[in-house]
């Protein structure tokens, strides 16, 4: 009967809540959408005005491809080092249709730049809008498995372009981006400084020690899981890559492990609490969920936590760290109470 009660409760509240949430989200989206035509109009008008005021520039002929050899005649040092750059393959490979034009595959046709010697006449991805810079890279790299999660990537949505992390002119087969754990962590913490601060806490994963890197757990290109979390064995959380013993399936599952993930109880970036727990005492990690009264009126928001174990004397230190006894808290093969 409980689900029926829950359903009826939800029915009574679902409409106003949905409306409220939709209104909130709608406001943001609508404001943005409404702003666009107006802003575009203003911008177009301003451009027209400016165009009318300024003398008409001499028409420039469309740039043409000149080939990498020509680029190298001036940019000699870059051209020389480029021989060992991973992108050198573009120079010889017909696959991407930029053979003999590797430089221009990113920088665009260079004939105007060659004539004027002006930096303004060549495309520099570093100066482009992030979306434009990404397009230059994705011309070749979109159709690779790395970018299949791009549609969910917070980096892509927050205008963190490819060249923010990748040094295109760097050398070596894997030189475009750091490969050593310490260097990867350094790169990520350059922006995610608040996350890096968490790793200074006593209980944390061993990133400052160089034993792990951010990309062991997160896919910076985006993935199917929230926060770009890596996956294991197709669609399991990436945590299982190292913590294989917590993977299951167990004959007695602990629901939050599947439904909310490890961060329901752990702070994976670091904590002052032992075992990276979210609370300083284990009992509160447990009891904050396991506190639904055994009455028929389960709360609509938070139905899955069960009754607390009333027969334990919580004043006694014996019972204050629940998982001293309920030690198989990630799931058990033989005990419904997760005791063994």
């Amino acid at each position, binding site marked *: 009967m409980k689900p029926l009660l829950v359903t009826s409760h939800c029915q009574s509240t679902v409409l106003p*809540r949905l409306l409220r949430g939709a209104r909130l989200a709608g406001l943001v989206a609508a404001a943005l959408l409404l702003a666009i035509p107006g802003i575009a109009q203003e911008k177009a008008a301003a451009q027209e005005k400016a165009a009318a005021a300024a003398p008409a520039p001499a028409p420039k002929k469309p740039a043409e491809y000149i080939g990498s050899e020509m680029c190298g005649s001036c940019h000699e040092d870059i051209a020389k*080092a480029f021989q060992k750059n991973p992108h050198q393959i573009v120079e010889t490979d017909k696959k991407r249709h930029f053979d003999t034009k590797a430089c221009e595959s990113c920088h665009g046709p260079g004939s105007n730049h060659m004539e004027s010697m002006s930096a303004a006449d060549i495309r520099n991805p570093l100066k482009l809008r992030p979306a434009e810079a990404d397009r230059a890279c994705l011309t070749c790299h979109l159709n690779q498995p790395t970018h299949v999660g791009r549609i969910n990537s917070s980096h892509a949505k927050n205008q963190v372009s490819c060249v923010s992390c990748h040094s295109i002119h760097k050398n070596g087969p894997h030189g475009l981006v750091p490969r050593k754990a310490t*260097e990867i962590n350094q790169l990520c913490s350059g922006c995610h400084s*608040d996350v890096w601060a968490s790793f200074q806490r*006593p209980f944390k994963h061993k990133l400052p020690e160089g034993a792990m890197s951010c990309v062991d757990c997160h896919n910076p290109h985006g993935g199917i899981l929230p926060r770009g979390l890596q996956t294991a064995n197709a*669609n399991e959380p990436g945590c299982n890559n190292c913590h294989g013993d917590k993977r299951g399936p167990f004959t007695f599952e602990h629901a939050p492990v599947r439904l909310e993930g490890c961060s*329901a109880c752990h702070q994976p970036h670091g904590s002052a609490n032992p075992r990276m727990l979210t609370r300083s005492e284990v009992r509160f990690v447990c009891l904050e969920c396991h506190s639904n009264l055994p009455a028929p009126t389960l709360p609509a928001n*938070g139905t899955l936590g069960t009754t607390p174990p*009333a027969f334990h004397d919580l004043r006694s230190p014996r019972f204050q760290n629940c998982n001293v006894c309920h030690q198989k808290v990630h799931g058990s093969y033989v005990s419904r109470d997760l005791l063994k």
Partner: protein
Amino acid sequence: MRFLLALILLAPAFAQQSPAQANPPAKPEEKAAEATAQTETKAEKPADKPAESPAPSTESWIDGSVDFGYRWLTNVNGNFQQYRSIVNLGEGPKLFGVDLTIQDPKRRLFDRLDARAYGWGGDPYSTAHVNMRKAKIYDLNFDYRNIAYFNAVPSFANPSAPLGFNEQTFDLHRKTINATLDFNPGGHILPYLAYERNSGYGNGIETWVNESTNEYPVPTVFRDSTDNYRGGLRLEYNRFHVTVEQGGTTFKDDDQAFDRTYQGGDRTTPLFGQTLYLTGLNQAYGIRGTSYYTKAIGTLHVTSNMDFYGQFLYSDPKTDVNFNELAAGNFSQINSLLFYSNQLTIGTGAANQPHTTANLGYEIRLFKNHLRLMYSWITDRYTDNASPFVTQTFGNGSATPPATIATALNYGQKVNYDQQQWDVLYDLGSKITLRGGIRWVSGDATVLAGSLSQTGNLVSGKLDRTIGLGGLTYRPNQKFTANLDYEGSSSDNIYFRTSLNEYSKGRARAKYQFNSALGLQARFTVLDNQNPDPSIRYSLRARDNAITLFWTPKSSKFVSLMGEYDRSTVQSSISYLGLFLSQQTSSYRDNSHSATAALNLTLPGVVPAKLTVGGSLFVSNGSRSTQYYQPLVKLSLPIGKHVYWNTDWQYYGYGEQAYMFEAFRTHVFETGLRLTK
């Protein structure tokens, strides 16, 4: 104010080992370049900066470095178990690091081989990595890690028990091996093979529980391993990409507990006049698991304005259970007031969890890519069919027939999750990008209830959440970037009392590069969550403010500085059922300050020496007031063209207000040579 002053004064001395410092000492110009890379993304470099020249290529066959030496520890003052739980560095000769690159000029077996290894010689984290490749033939990556997991935190178990802190103690190593072999790199058709292994082994002390009447710490041997084999094919063309992968996994868990000593357990008083004790235990797990999985992912570049993305992931893990346990002593079953002297437990069963995940999405770009629409749909669903069967037989050594309890279940769990998200991004000129969107999340779950549940074996929950998204990126010039993000949700149903319900999440980030030497970054994040249900009354507010300063003057190659300060607060309160089911409030507070700094000085000379002073500090007040200091000093002295003498000092100091007996402090010295070629 005093704290701030102290912080400023101590920042260079008390600071953390920044990630870069774990590397072998780099040349000053490399260091400066690294630090610069932190302060500015490449996209934000000054506009007039000329194109950066790549590092000159080496003509040498082999180059690299090796670091080796010796580590000393002063006596660990305080709690040694806690030291091992947090730091765990040991004494002795060490191979700190090897970094090697071999380029075969004749390109016989490989074009280039990169190998590196860190932390060998008994260190708690040893790693090795090899990459070997031959253009258009193969690309081999091998990664190995062995990470020690020692955990014996006194306050974590039962501080008042006779053997208290020993419970839930582990001295384990987790090893991971990852090898992937890609064929035809850079081509259109790329087959690949991979093997991964994750295993844990070691000893520990777990708890053998006799209902709620007593519990006993027992020595345990841990053994588990997961082997994963997979292979696939990638098709990469200009218009589309498809990857199809098939994999399989085997799993085994052979944990064992064995004890032959008399133990009184944690209970300090007799139960109905009888003393409860354990005199012998044999416990063995024999868990075997298999899984196969399928992965199909693809991207499609439909037109210059439209891209499609898709993923289909399926796994089907299965587990077979074999468990047996024999315990002897004096035990009690409180429900039936039964006292007995031995207990035999046999567990069998199986679990099977077919799990499907899929994602479809597309991106449409309009108005010369100024307007982008992104849509993504994700679904994740699994069913869990479990059939545990456990019998417990209680005997008392007399002629009385033993009592038996059998637990047999045959149940199915179901979890469905769906998410849709729309994002609209608009570039307002070249300086401003606006973002807005909406995300709908819904789900339903029927899962195994706790044994005290009033609703039977299964319990159901729902998830319905609507989330509004908004954001702004402002880049007025190459020196300044600001980013704002907002996410606000209204939930109709959530699974757990502590789940996000009515929440708002905001984040602001700004970076300013004053000049080529000096950069500043600030971040601010806040999360506010409310669940006003009268039986829950959950209120959470978490804030994090961080400021980072980089100073890498290019005119002076002799000094660079990185400093970071972070302050975070967490205020959480939620009502819960405490003693005798009385409603109480659980309040958690964390008010912490973290600071890290690294001052790099290059001492003048023909071949310059390098001094690094820095480290980290963490100070928190609140529910677990903690101080953790890790200052360090590193000196690298050149004693030959290719030989450096490296000496490090690092101090580890840890203390807690509530559990003062867990404090420790120690000095760690390392000295050794770095040979380079």
